[in-house]
């Protein structure tokens, strides 16, 4: 690449990153403005930054409680999905069972089903079990999203583990389940971890089930809680931008730490190797 091309390329990159990050930058800059400045000017930088919006965001609505709810529900959903999905993915990729295509077909179809077609019977089911406004009331419907996703990604990872190790374990007299627990599972740990991150993000971001099933404020999750900041009469943009910044920070940290894993997980389902 010649020098001029290189400079052009970097200029393009800077513009691209700026456009992608612009909403975050602007929302952050808004969150540290005094409230009256938000509504009166389009200045980028405020001359007297304040944290009053953050205080309002945390006191007007139970934002930390929303985050706790989201965290508990997402973590439990992820663990549950990983246990069941790793069994299934192992059986489908390594064991001599019939109907593998059918099983994966069902799983893929299940991941394509629109949530809106599931929501009303699921709502009746959860109401009937008396689980509305509880963690379990969200974890059950979240299986519809997390389990197919986890099986789909994990089966690609399991496929990549060399067969020779399994063969030698068999020769040494290990039972199939021992092989799974002692050989495959440790080797697949990075893949399982990656799958876990993706399932966690999917559960953290879910909106429809959380909106309908947990309607009490103290059981709401982050996406639903955030959307409740706007009322019919006024829109407190200061609170909203501060709340957005607060809930985005954990995700930014997660992405920065695990970006390689996330990319490998996202692309594992779509690229033939």
């Amino acid at each position, binding site marked *: 690449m010649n020098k001029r091309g290189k400079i052009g390329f970097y200029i393009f990159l800077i513009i691209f990153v700026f456009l992608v990050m612009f909403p975050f930058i602007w929302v952050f800059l808004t969150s540290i403005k005094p409230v009256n400045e938000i509504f009166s000017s389009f200045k980028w930088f405020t001359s007297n930054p304040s944290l009053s919006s953050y205080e309002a965001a945390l006191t007007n609505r139970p934002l930390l409680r929303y985050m706790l709810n989201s965290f508990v529900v997402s973590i439990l959903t992820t663990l549950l999905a990983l246990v069941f999905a790793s069994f299934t993915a192992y059986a489908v990729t390594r064991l001599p069972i019939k109907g593998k295509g059918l099983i994966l077909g069902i799983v893929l179809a299940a991941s394509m089903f629109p949530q809106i077609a599931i929501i009303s*019977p699921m709502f009746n089911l959860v109401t009937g079990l008396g689980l509305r406004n509880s963690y379990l009331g969200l974890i059950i419907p979240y299986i519809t999203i997390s389990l197919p996703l986890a099986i789909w990604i994990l089966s690609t990872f399991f496929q990549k583990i060399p067969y020779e190790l399994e063969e030698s374990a068999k020769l040494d007299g290990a039972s199939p389940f021992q092989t799974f627990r002692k050989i495959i599972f440790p080797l697949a740990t990075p893949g399982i971890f990656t799958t876990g991150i993706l399932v966690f993000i999917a559960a953290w971001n879910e909106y429809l089930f959380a909106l309908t099933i947990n309607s009490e404020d103290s059981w709401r999750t982050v996406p639903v809680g955030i959307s409740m900041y706007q009322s019919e009469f006024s829109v407190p943009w200061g609170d909203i931008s501060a709340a957005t910044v607060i809930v985005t920070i954990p995700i930014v940290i997660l992405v920065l730490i695990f970006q390689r894993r996330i990319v490998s997980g996202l692309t594992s389902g779509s690229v033939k190797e």
Partner: protein
Amino acid sequence: MKRKKRSFQLNEKQLGYAMVLPSLILVFVVVLWPVAQSFWNSLFDYRLNDPNRSELMLSANIDLERYVDNHFYINSQLEDLASSVEGEAAATITDIKEKINGYHQELVEDEETKQKVEKVDELIMNYQPVTDSDLKYQKIDNGFADEYRDALMSYQDKLTGLASSVSDETVSENINQSADLLGATGETILKSNFIGLKNYGKYLQDTRMWKSLWNTTFFTVVTVALELVLGVCIALLINRAFKGRGLIRASVLIPWAIPTAVAAMMWGFLYDGQSGIVAHYLASLNLIPGESWLLSTSNGGMFSIILADVWKTTPYMALLILAGLQTIPSSLYEASGVDGANKWQQFWKITLPLLKSSILVALLFRTLDAFRVFDLIYVLTGGGPANATESISVYAYKTLFAQQNFGEGSVLSVIVFLCVALISFIYVKLIGSDLFAGRTK
């Protein structure tokens, strides 16, 4: 030795099925059963907020909680009435009383009904609500239900007529009260609310349904096309080694990773007619007619949700395509370069054909996601202004949960389901067996 190996094989197979089974059961319970249930619900006039239609009833039913409670007062009230009036009127009231008793006897002739009536009676005496819907509702013969209900309604009319002919005001009021009681008792006998495909007929002629279906299709086609073109361009540009790749990757992942509802709130702020910076800049560049255009006009609303969606998912598309690009061996480009092919030819003859399967898989998932769009629209515009951005999922949600109409709402969700099934079918045909490649052996 041979025998031992065979039994080992069998064990492996059994283990395999045992490992698959829990997930399959879960998928059936939380995905397939609810979808089937949605189909079934859509055949009923099923409304949560109407006590006469809040259950699925294939045949006539009687709401025992309300029936027993009302029936308890009928006898004594009518007796009091009969003694407070004279002559023909008294005879009519006694006649009504006896006939109702006759019907009630016929009702409790059925042993099961009788037992339930007694149990419900006991609960009501203790001021306890009947929570068990098995106990609360009892199936009864359709013909008998119609007859009993019609009879109660006609007695109500008779008593109302009687009330207007009586001169004493207190007596007249008492008669009217009893008439209301009979009417309310009649209401507890519920007709079947199975209506077959009638709901579908209604929605096939519903302009709002067609409008929302069109909105969804338009949104899907435009966003997916834009995301694909932009995604390919970005992937081609960054498919090389350079400093700062990690930064690019992270900045690309963050919009994808944040909740759609949070992204929708952010864009709602940027688009706001008074303090939104994007609205302000676009208006001062004369790209849009005015600052309030974005969220208060139909075209503006559609533009807004499309832009927000493209911002959120183009990076994801670019990542998938970039991963596909990296599997193309560079020797192919070198060889074609030697043969004198230019970049443009290389793109059409090498890059695109080899990217085909990754692009199709990415398109499949994106198209389905876009077609099911809910959070973005629900939070950003609420389907407005004037339903101009309402997607079919948003319409279904409003019917299901704002109107509490589970019968009609299920029709809309079944329509979403059928569209999604059709889209997946077409894509899976196009992609073929590649979808499963590398997973089964």
